[in-house]
């Protein structure tokens, strides 16, 4: 799951291709992140892991690192 998220971020954020994004790197500090990217990231997470994120969980803190996103996905998968 983490690899899949990492791949998406590497392809969509303007980061140096040689340095892999670490699980606890704050992706919103790596480079400029647009509102467009935020929406795409949410759509990517929902489509890839077949979940629908509740309004309450659509928060920066849940998407700022790969760890946080993995935790969020885990939470929804336990419910189903």
């Amino acid at each position, binding site marked *: 799951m983490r690899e899949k998220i990492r791949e998406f971020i590497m392809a*969509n954020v*303007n980061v140096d291709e040689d340095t892999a994004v670490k699980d606890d790197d704050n992706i919103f500090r790596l480079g400029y992140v*647009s*509102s*467009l990217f935020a929406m795409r990231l949410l759509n990517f997470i929902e489509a890839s892991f077949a979940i629908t994120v509740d309004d309450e969980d*659509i*928060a*920066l803190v849940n998407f700022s690192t790969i760890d946080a996103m993995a935790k969020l996905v885990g939470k929804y998968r336990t419910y189903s």
Partner: protein
Amino acid sequence: MNTQSGAERVRPVSETSAIKPVKCVVWDLDHTLWTGVLAEGDDVVLKPGLGDVLYQLDRRGILNSISSRNDHADAMRKLAQFGLAEYFLYPQIDWGAKSVGIAKIQSQLDVGMDTLLFIDDQPFERDEVRAIHPSVECVPAESYVDLLDHPRLRAAIMTEDAGRRRLMYLHEQARRQDQECFVGTPEAFLATLAMRFVISRAQEADLLRAEELTIRTNQLNATGITYDSDDLRRLMASPMHSLLICELSDRYGSYGKIGLALLEHQAQYDYIRLLLMSCRTVSRGVGSVLLTHLMQRARVRGKGLRADFRRTDRNRQMLVTYQFSGFREIERCDDRRTVFEHDLAVVQGFPPYIDVLIDY
């Protein structure tokens, strides 16, 4: 003090949804737009007054398209002879089912199926479309003479933006074609557009467009509350409020006035009562530009920043915009309204691919 509470401005739902404006008229050709059958070699003649109907619809900002069983090249040549080809966006002229053509038009224009009106002389064709798309209004060919008085086509507000709507769709078509050929991230493509975003105070001439924005905007609308131009004129004059309007342009042309914000100035807070961005701009990555400006503005003036948000079934993207910009919910009111607040400790700059001009 706090007179502009969101709740009292909500109009009854029945009033706004009873007459849902038509955004696009889809025309059949043989025996509808013209008399005769082109494919049978008839010397077809345009129905009397039809050119004027198209012209008037176009001025009102209502789009026109075609769903017809014909040879595409022949039909387009004939339309060009009549001087009408340029009026039709995404014409669907082939030998397939009309419901399929209508689905393509709807998807290309990115408008609701219930905003299309289909005009065709054949009851069979109207029934076929109605069976597949029950929300498309289907009318017989002869009703074209009264079309301009149709309630759903009269509801449109005449603004400068409305008159330019077809051109803006054509620009959008060109952008999409270029984007499909582009290799790289969406942000890298945006950088090639040379976008310019101008934020200014709304003027009298903007009020009709501002009203139209509150009615037509669904996805990037923080409250879904509509305002008429009299409401807006009053707010524009109020020293307690700032009514800001935005225009976006790029190397293909202008998108027109696409953003609106109403700020209420309280002693300690700037309070965002209304924030919306036209759905034309959804793929342009400018959804947070106006919000970022309001954050920077409040911070410079040493004020806090709060915002009304009312969740509708279509504005999830606005929720994402607020929450990803760092706003937090501080209060939930009875009328499905939420109050957001930003601590302004960290305020992001504008996207690097866009030139923002603050013109007030």
